């Protein structure tokens, strides 16, 4: 049964108060002084007990960052960010060697994740209706709270399969060779302003390694939570899928409701070798700011996957409902012959939110293929831009791209923009682009309401229908969650 059958039920259960993840958790924190300089970077590195090479890498990134400018080309506006006014490290106080098991995790933290609906206890999630699939529905979770990973579940089960899933800070200590071999090879330290900043100060994130021929036995998932005031969150995720391996990874994020803006600048790097597949799904629900546009997260994220191997496949699926500003272009570098890149995106903006998001598909290998399906929904006074690049390099013989880019407008004070860049340097490569812009038609709303649906339920239903091609790419648990979010983030957008 399609997950969307549950949509309206779940919508009913959601509060009317708008952002319901906005609570703050009172936990004793170890916080670095405000500001960014080499000493802070040394402090982060020493707190993480990092080897010397890692510190050197960070300092190199910091030097690069100092010589860079914030990018100005995106269709977003915000007051200048004072990078010296932020804390770059905040961690819950705890025994210095960290919790060995969930039993040692601060109960307040566990309670918070419980409140967020994130299962840190090691048990199966019975979201599916099919009891036979229970085993497959287990989700291993890594929870990142401000600057540190607080718990990673199912480590033992995963280890038996040969899968490494751990906080990246731990990976730097325990698997330095692997990390050194791949870190920064997809997103180099000086790639862009925010990636350089992240490289200098990243504090935690997840590390995933799937060895040759292994199909990861469960979904892997990381939940990010910004809690401390004036803290930037800079997580770093690195996923390596060796030959013929498969992994599905999910990422979710929330933050408390605050008047000031908070910066989130993550970097995600994916590497897929021959015949490997990585499916990366995001449900991004950072605090979007209030109805007047006060507060909210600046979500400036660099995500990129390298399809290094022949027939490798990387698939990005994202549902972006939160953040005051989203600046994010999950991309694929399709190096391998016949490699495949996919980007499925739903981006919703309401009130004063701004989103400039899309993807880059860089076709290097012959026969490489990419698919882009982007659904932008704008309501209120928001602005929603799709920005996408498809580049066919000279070696990309017979490469293919298909792009479908649809915008839905709710009300008449919002904006939707589509900015496709297409560059082809191989005459046998084919690029197809389709774009539509529509409004929710009055007669569609009336038809639903005549059948007894409230106006908001009607909008929810129509919007979910509009996004279906993307939502069906999400794993079951996330699809249901995403539908709830779509409805909640559009609350009050009609009538």
């Amino acid at each position, binding site marked *: 049964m399609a997950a969307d*059958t549950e949509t309206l039920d779940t919508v009913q259960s959601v509060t009317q108060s708008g952002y319901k993840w906005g609570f703050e958790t009172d936990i004793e924190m170890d916080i670095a002084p405000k500001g960014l300089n080499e000493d802070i970077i040394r402090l982060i590195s020493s707190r993480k007990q990092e080897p010397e090479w890692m510190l050197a890498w960070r300092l190199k990134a910091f030097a690069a960052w100092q010589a860079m400018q914030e990018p100005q080309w995106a269709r977003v506006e915000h007051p200048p960010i004072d990078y010296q006014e932020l804390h770059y490290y905040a961690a819950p106080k705890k025994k210095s060697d960290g919790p060995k098991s969930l039993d040692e995790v601060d109960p307040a933290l566990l309670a918070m994740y419980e409140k967020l609906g994130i299962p840190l206890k090691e048990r199966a999630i019975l979201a599916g209706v099919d009891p036979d699939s229970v085993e497959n529905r287990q989700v291993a979770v890594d929870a990142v709270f401000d600057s540190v990973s607080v718990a990673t579940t199912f480590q033992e089960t995963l280890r038996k399969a040969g899968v490494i899933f751990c906080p990246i800070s731990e990976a730097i200590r325990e698997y330095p060779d692997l990390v050194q071999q791949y870190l920064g090879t997809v997103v180099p330290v000086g790639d862009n302003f925010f990636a350089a900043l992240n490289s200098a100060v990243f504090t935690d994130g997840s590390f995933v390694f799937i060895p040759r021929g292994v199909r990861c036995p469960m979904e892997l998932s990381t939940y990010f939570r910004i809690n401390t005031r004036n803290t930037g969150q800079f997580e770093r995720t690195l996923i390596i899928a060796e030959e013929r391996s498969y992994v599905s990874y999910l990422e979710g994020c929330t933050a408390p409701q605050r008047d000031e803006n908070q910066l989130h600048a993550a970097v995600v790097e994916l590497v897929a070798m021959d015949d490997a597949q990585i499916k990366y799904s995001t449900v991004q629900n950072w605090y979007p700011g209030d109805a007047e546009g006060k507060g909210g997260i600046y979500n400036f994220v660099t995500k990129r996957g390298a399809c290094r191997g022949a027939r490798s496949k990387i698939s990005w699926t994202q549902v972006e409902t939160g953040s005051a500003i989203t600046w994010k272009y999950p991309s694929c570098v399709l190096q391998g012959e016949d490699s495949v890149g996919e980007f499925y995106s739903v981006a919703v903006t309401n009130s004063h939110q701004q989103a400039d998001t899309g993807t880059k598909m860089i076709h290097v290998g012959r026969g490489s293929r990419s698919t882009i399906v982007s659904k932008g929904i704008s309501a209120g006074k928001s602005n929603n831009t799709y920005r996408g690049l498809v580049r066919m390099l000279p070696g990309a013989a017979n490469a293919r791209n298909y792009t479908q880019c649809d915008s839905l407008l709710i009300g008449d004070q919002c904006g939707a923009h589509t900015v496709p860049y297409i560059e082809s340097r191989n005459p046998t490569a084919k690029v197809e682009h389709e774009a539509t812009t529509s409004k929710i038609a009055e007669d569609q709303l009336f*038809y639903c*309401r005549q*059948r*007894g649906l*409230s*106006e908001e339920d009607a909008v929810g239903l129509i919007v979910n*229908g509009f996004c*279906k091609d993307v939502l069906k790419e999400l794993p079951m648990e996330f699809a249901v969650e995403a539908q709830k979010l779509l409805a909640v983030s559009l609350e009050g957008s009609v009538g």
Partner: protein
Amino acid sequence: MLEIRGLAAAINEKPILKGIDLTVPDGEVHAIMGPNGSGKSTLGYVLSGREDYAVTAGSATFNGIDLLDMEPEARAAAGLFLAFQAPIELPGVNNANFLRTALNAIRRSRGESELDAVQFLKLARAEAKRLAMPDDMLKRNVNVGFSGGEKKRNEVLQMALLRPKLAILDETDSGLDIDALKIVADGVNALRGPEFSALVITHHQRLLDHLVPNRVHVLLNGQIVRSGGPELAKELEKRGYGDLIAEAA
């Protein structure tokens, strides 16, 4: 009981309904006939609360409550159902999901428990079977790519599931093949009872052979110009609207 008194309505400042008086007692089926553009669909829209229409005079009550004051969904909850002359397409919205959402909304408003997906599908499949609708129409997107006749049958399926107290069928018989026509008429007849009434807008006597109305009204240029028993429809079929138009002029 539906009571319409002196109802006048305009769209974009253009008067369409010009003083309609009509009473449909509980348990009765009334047919509305009349030439193209005379305001039949408009009457259905105004009664069900479509926003683009401005009511400029008169009243409409159902079982004593003022319909014109209510949101469309509240009217639906009060038991009003409109089978659209041109059913609307909802891309990406699964038909079964849409029907269940609608049914549960109506059930909630009646204080009844909601149906889960399994209960609903059982019910919907049974109704679809009665209407000789293929099962896969429940799986498809609402009205998207449905043939003209399939759309009409889908309207009747919705009506059968929602069990309204007052159904307005706007040319639900148009575009139906002969067998379907009978199925649709049977669908309405199955609902007939002391608590059900219907306004059936049609151009064809043949529907009224299967669905015999208590009264027939002729709407012309926004007004009801003639009312009578079932024989009026037969007379109109033979003679057309010419005489009535001449009379009105």
